[in-house]
């Protein structure tokens, strides 16, 4: 039953490859339902969410019916019903559905988060931000929510608040280089000497956590050269930053050389990178 194992692996890793899940899951449900035993319910849930992603409403409806039959009063099933209404763009009904779940159980985080995503889908980002803030006041530990909030703020160009959210994420996941890198990018976008310094440091941290993060390497180069070029810095700072920038350049060159190891296309791209770097460098 390697199909079942595949589905389980995707479920545990939180993969969102909905088309594959729908293919595998549909076959599994139609042909091997009896052999699955109790696993079938969780497979129904997984396939239903994937079907909603692929607009396969027929499949989603069958899964939902089966689940409703088996678990009539369940909160989890109600949430799935709400998600289906969302997929059909019946946002009012979906919202009412989630409200009824919350009446029964005010600590149900899933329903709250779906309500916020309805607002986001309707484009009401200001309201979504407000609701998400309220949600986070209650549930300070929800990392998914912090990340979502930082994205919303970046879209609204409110970089200060986005930085705050990313700081929360960095604290809870100190070894995740991606959060460091996103934080550094936000600081770089904010601009200003202090923020550029901070961004340089965080790009360096991201690189330290993961030596192969090319974005962070380029970011390091950009922030260091920016600081070096700024008229307000004194000579020592400038020298230090030029040193950082040249180091970054060397690493970038090394990386690009490793990339192709002498193939013809690669020689061109290496040259292109060198020229680009020279053009950005201001001495």
């Amino acid at each position: 039953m390697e199909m079942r194992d595949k589905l389980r692996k995707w479920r545990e890793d939180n993969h969102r490859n909905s088309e594959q899940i729908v293919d595998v899951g549909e076959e599994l449900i139609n042909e091997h339902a009896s052999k699955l035993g109790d696993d079938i319910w969780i497979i129904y849930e997984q396939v239903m969410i994937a079907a909603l992603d692929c607009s396969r409403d027929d499949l989603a409806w069958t899964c939902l019916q089966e689940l409703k039959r088996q678990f009539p009063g369940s909160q989890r099933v109600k949430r799935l019903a709400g998600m289906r209404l969302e997929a059909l763009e019946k946002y009012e009904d979906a919202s009412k559905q989630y409200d009824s779940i919350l009446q029964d159980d005010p600590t149900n985080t899933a329903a709250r988060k779906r309500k916020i995503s309805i607002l986001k889908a309707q484009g009401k980002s200001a309201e979504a931000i407000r609701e998400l803030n309220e949600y986070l006041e209650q549930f300070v530990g929800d990392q998914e929510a912090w990340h979502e909030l930082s994205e919303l703020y970046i879209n609204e160009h409110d970089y200060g608040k986005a930085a705050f959210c990313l700081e929360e994420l960095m604290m809870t996941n100190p070894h995740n280089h991606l959060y460091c890198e996103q934080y550094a990018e936000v600081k770089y976008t904010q601009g200003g000497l202090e923020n550029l310094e901070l961004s340089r440091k965080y790009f360096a941290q991201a690189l330290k956590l993961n030596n192969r993060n090319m974005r962070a390497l380029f970011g390091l180069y950009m922030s260091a050269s920016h600081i070096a070029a700024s008229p307000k810095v004194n000579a020592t700072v400038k020298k230090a930053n030029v040193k950082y920038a040249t180091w970054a350049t060397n690493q970038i060159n090394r990386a690009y050389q490793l990339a192709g190891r002498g193939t013809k296309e690669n020689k061109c791209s290496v040259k292109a990178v060198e020229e680009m770097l020279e053009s950005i460098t201001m001495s």
Partner: protein
Amino acid sequence: MAEPELLLDSNIRLWVVLPIVFITFLVGVIRHYVSILLQSDKKLTLEQVSDSQVLIRSRILRENGKYIPKQSFLMRKFYFNNQEDGFFKNTKRKVVPPSPMTDPSMLTDMMKGNVTNVLPMILIGGWINWTFSGFVTTKVPFPLTLRFKPMLQQGIELLSLDASWVSSASWYFLNVFGLRSMYSLILGQDNGADQSRIMQEQMSGAAMAMPADTNKAFKAEWEALELTDHQWALENIEEELMSRELDLDGMFNSKH
């Protein structure tokens, strides 16, 4: 004292020792499943969830604060600990310690716990005592004083018998405690058959009132946070990073 070694009938081993182990184990497993069936749902209030998460956040701030800039750390510390409107200073939760007598749900929980655990133990202990009485079951490997005799040699009326020889009832009790580790092996941690843990909980439960903990927990966090200082981990990061070349191994191999 030197005494002739008693040779026990091997039938005893077969028909007494092993059945008692068996019975104890099965009763334990049954107890576990019964306790699962009888378990009442614990409903958490929104406030409790929220509070527990806030405590976690504050702890993370203390532990990992060194990864965020000094400004941000101070901002958060200020938010929590400020004299006038810091979170930990100001939030007082209404505390009603649920005394076992007044809070009905806790009362039923306690009763269920007692019934499930103590009653079977008494019943089966008595039954074993009655069934397997009149003979010596086993010998404990260490010498005991005479004071233990009436306790451990329930059905045996021999004054000269060394107190190390015990009856079946004591073997039963030995099993009850000894099979604890077997239960955690087979039923997983936190199982309902683990009696000694439950007894421990009952003893300490009387001294501990959960909701009052929140206020105390807040106070403890406040103190701990006051004491933490911000040591920025990124102080010399560029130097550390550039002291050696980046490790770019395997970056461009074909993936998946």
